[in-house]
C-alpha cells in the first residue's frame, strides 16, 4: 500500500530526479554499510553472524515475495532453500572432482536454478489454491521432502549430510575463500544483487499484480489476469531466490544436511519475515537481522529462549501485525513533516514503563523456570548480574512489584503518548497541506 502511495506521488520531473537520486542513494549507503561492517566487527564469530544475516536476508525477502506481496502463506519454504543448498554442495564436489574452471562466486546460481526447477514442479500443483489450502499443501510437501531426506541417503547424505571444501574450486586473483571474511564479502555481494533484483520486481507490473492477487483475487480475474498464473510465477521466482540463499549457506558451512529442508527452518524464516513486517519491502530485512541475532545470542543469556521467541511472536501478531517495519514506517510522515521530536518525551516515558514491566515479567518467568525445572541446582540463581534465592519470598515480591509498577506506569503514560501521537499526526497533515 505504501509502495502504491509512493509511486502515486511521483508526478513532476523535478521530483522524479530527486526521488531517483534518493532511491539509488539508499542502495549506495547499503553497499557502503555492507562493505564497511567487517572493519568494525572483526572477530570470527561476528563475521559468521554477519554472513548468516546476509543469507537470512535473501531467504526472508524471497519468502516475503510469497507472503507479503502475493498473500500466500507457506509453511514449507525451506524445501527450496534446502534443495538449493544440496544441489550446490553436489555441484561443488563435482566441480572439484572434474576440475572445471568455475570459480566459487558463480556457484550460488546452481542453487537458484535448483530452487527454480523444484518451485516449478511443486508450484504447478500447489498454487492452484490460495489461502489455507495452499498453506496446508506447503506443509504436506515440506513434511514429504523432510521425510524422504532420511530415506534417500545417496543424495541427502543421511545423518552426516554432504560436505565439501570451498577452497578447492578454481581461483580468481588467488582468492581461495578459506577465510570467513572472504565468504562474508561473497555473501554481501549476492545479498545486494538479490535485494536489488527483488526490489525491482516489486516495481514491475507483475509485482503490482501480485499485490492485487493478495487483495482481491476475484477482481483480478475481472480485469483479465489469472490469479493462478500470477501466484505460480511468484512462487517460482521466490523459489529461485530461496535456492540462492541455500547455496550461499552451503558455501558458508561447507556441510549440508537434512535440517536445511526441515519444517523448523521454514518456521524460522516465517518468524523472521513476520516479525520484521510483511507489509514493507524492508520488513524481512529487519526481521532477518533481528532473528539471526537473537537465535545466536539469546541462548547464551537464557535457557528458555524458545519461550521468549514464542511470546514475542504472539505479541507481534496481536499488537503489531505490521511488524517492526510497520511500526517504524508509521513514523515516516512525522519525520517528513519534522514533528517527530515531539514524540520523544512520551516515547521515553513509555519505554521506561515497558522496560520495568518487561524486567518484572522476565524475572517471574526465569524464577519460575528455575524453581520448577532446575530444582537440583539449588535455589539460588543469577540474573542481570544479581543473585536471587528462588526459595525466599523477596525475589517474587520484587518481580511482582516490577510488573505492577510497569503496568501502572503504562496505563498512565499510554493516553499521554496517544495524545502526543494524534497531535503530531495532525500537525504533520496540516504541515503537508501548507
Amino acid at each position, binding site marked *: 500500500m505504501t509502495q502504491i502511495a509512493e509511486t502515486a506521488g511521483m508526478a513532476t520531473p523535478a521530483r522524479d530526479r530527486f526521488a531517483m537520486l534518493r532511491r539509488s542513494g539508499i542502495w549506495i549507503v547499503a553497499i557502503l554499510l555492507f562493505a564497511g561492517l567487517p572493519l568494525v566487527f572483526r572477530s570470527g564469530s561476528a563475521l559468521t553472524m554477519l554472513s548468516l544475516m546476509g543469507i537470512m536476508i535473501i531467504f526472508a525477502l524471497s519468502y516475503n515475495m510469497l507472503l507479503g506481496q502475493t498473500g500466500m502463506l507457506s509453511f514449507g519454504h525451506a524445501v527450496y532453500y534446502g534443495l538449493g543448498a544440496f544441489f550446490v554442495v553436489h555441484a561443488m564436489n563435482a566441480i572439484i572432482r572434474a576440475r572445471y574452471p568455475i570459480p566459487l562466486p558463480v556457484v550460488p546460481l546452481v542453487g537458484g536454478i535448483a530452487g527454480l526447477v523444484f518451485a516449478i514442479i511443486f508450484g504447478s500443483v500447489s498454487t492452484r489454491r490460495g489461502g*489455507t*489450502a495452499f*498453506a496446508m499443501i506447503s506443509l504436506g510437501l515440506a513434511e514429504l521432502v523432510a*521425510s524422504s531426506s532420511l*530415506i534417500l541417503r545417496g543424495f541427502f547424505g543421511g545423518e552426516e549430510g554432504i560436505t565439501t571444501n570451498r577452497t578447492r574450486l578454481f581461483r580468481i586473483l588467488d582468492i581461495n575463500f578459506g577465510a570467513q571474511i572472504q565468504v562474508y564479502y561473497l555473501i554481501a555481494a549476492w545479498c545486494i544483487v538479490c535485494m536489488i533484483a527483488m526490489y525491482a520486481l516489486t516495481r514491475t507490473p507483475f509485482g503490482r499484480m501480485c499485490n492485487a492477487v493478495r487483495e482481491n483475487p476475484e477482481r483480478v480475474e475481472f480485469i483479465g489476469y489469472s490469479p493462478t498464473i500470477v501466484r505460480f510465477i511468484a512462487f517460482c521466482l521466490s523459489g529461485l531466490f530461496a535456492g540462492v540463499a541455500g547455496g550461499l549457506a552451503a558455501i558458508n558451512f561447507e556441510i549440508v544436511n537434512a535440517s536445511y529442508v526441515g519444517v523448523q527452518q521454514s518456521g524460522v524464516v516465517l518468524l523472521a519475515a513476520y516479525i520484521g513486517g510483511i507489509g514493507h519491502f524492508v520488513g524481512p530485512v529487519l526481521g532477518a537481522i533481528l532473528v539471526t541475532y537473537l537465535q545466536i545470542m539469546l541462548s547464551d543469556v537464557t535457557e528458555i529462549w524458545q519461550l521468549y521467541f514464542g511470546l514475542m*511472536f*504472539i505479541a507481534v501478531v496481536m499488537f503489531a501485525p505490521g511488524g517492526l517495519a510497520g511500526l517504524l514506517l508509521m513514523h515516516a510522515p512525522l519525520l517528513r513533516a519534522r514533528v517527530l521530536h515531539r514524540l520523544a518525551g512520551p516515547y521515553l516515558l513509555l519505554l521506561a514503563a515497558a522496560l520495568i514491566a518487561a524486567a518484572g515479567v522476565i524475572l517471574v518467568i526465569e524464577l519460575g523456570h528455575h524453581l*520448577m525445572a532446575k530444582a537440583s541446582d539449588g535455589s539460588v540463581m543469577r540474573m542481570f548480574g544479581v543473585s536471587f534465592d528462588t526459595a525466599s519470598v523477596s525475589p517474587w515480591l520484587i518481580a511482582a512489584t516490577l510488573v505492577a509498577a510497569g503496568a501502572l506506569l503504562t496505563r498512565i503514560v499510554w493516553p499521554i503518548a496517544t495524545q502526543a501521537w494524534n497531535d503530531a499526526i495532525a500537525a504533520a497533515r496540516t504541515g503537508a497541506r501548507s
Partner: protein
Amino acid sequence: MLELILISTLNGMLFGMLLFLMASGLTLIFSMMGVLNFAHASFYMLGAFFGFQISRYVGFWPALVLAPVVVGVIGALVERYGLRNVHRHGHVAELLFTFGLAFVIEEIVQMVWGKAPVDYRVPALLDFTAFTVFSTNYPAYKLFMLLISIAIFIALLAVLTRTRVGLIIQAALTHPNMVAMLGHNVPRVFMLVFGSGCALAAVAGVIAGPALVTQANMAGLLGPILFVVVVVGGLGSLVGAFAASLLIGLIQTFAVSVNASLADLLGTFGLVLDTRSSLSELSNVTVAQIAPVIPYLLLVLILILRPTGLFGTRDT
C-alpha cells in the same frame, strides 16, 4: 497372517478414534470460525499432562473428568482474550497466532514438567488383558479407549442433532454468516465451540497418555496428522472427519505391517534395477518405512484432486 490383520484392524480403529476425538474439535473450530487451530495438538498435550498431574492427587477417574474441563476453560479464555483480538487482522494472523501459541504451550509444558517422559500409568482397574487373539494379548485399557471414544462420538452426535445449541452449531458449520444475522450471540457460540473443541482434544490426551509416551514433544508428533485428517475429511463435515480419521488410522497401521517395496513389485515382473543408482534406493524403500509419510501424500493428493475434501460441503 490373519492375526496380523485382526490386530492391525483393532489398532487402526483405535488410533483412528483417537484422531477423531481431536479432529472433531478441530473441524468444528475450523468450519465455524475459519481458523485452523495450530495449537489444537497442544491442548491434547495439556490434557495428557493435566490428566497425569490430577491423577497423581485424586486418581485416574476424577482426572478423566476434571482435566478436560480445565483445558476447556483455558481454551475458552484463549479464544476470548487472544483469538478474538487477532480476528480483525485476518485469517493469516489468526493462523500465526495459534502457531505461536503452540510454541509457547510446548515451552511452558517443558518448563513445568521437564523434557523427559512422565510416569503416567494405566489405572490399576484396567491393567489386565481383555482377550487373546491367536497368540497376541490385547490390553483392556485399549478396549476402554475404544469404547470411550465411541461413547463420546455418540454423545457429540446427540448434542449436535438433538439440542438447540447443537442445531445452531450445525447451522453455523455451513452458513456462519447467516447464523450471525439471525441474532444468535455468535461470539459466545464461538467461545463455547473453541472451549469444547479443546476439551475434546484434552479427553483424547487424558486417555492416550498412559498408552503412548507422555512427553513434551507429543503435540509436535500428532499435530501435522491432525491437519491431514481435517483437510482430507473436508470442511463443514463431522462425518468427513470421522471417515478421514478412521481411514488414516487404518492406513497408517496397516502400512506399517507391509514389508513390500516397489523393487519387490518390479521384481515380480522380472525387472531388476542397478543397486547403486539412486532410483534403486527409492524403489527399495518398503511401504513400512514410509508409512508415517503416507498421510501427507494423501493430503497433497486430496488438495490437488478434490480440494473440498472427501465429504466437504464448503470451500476453504
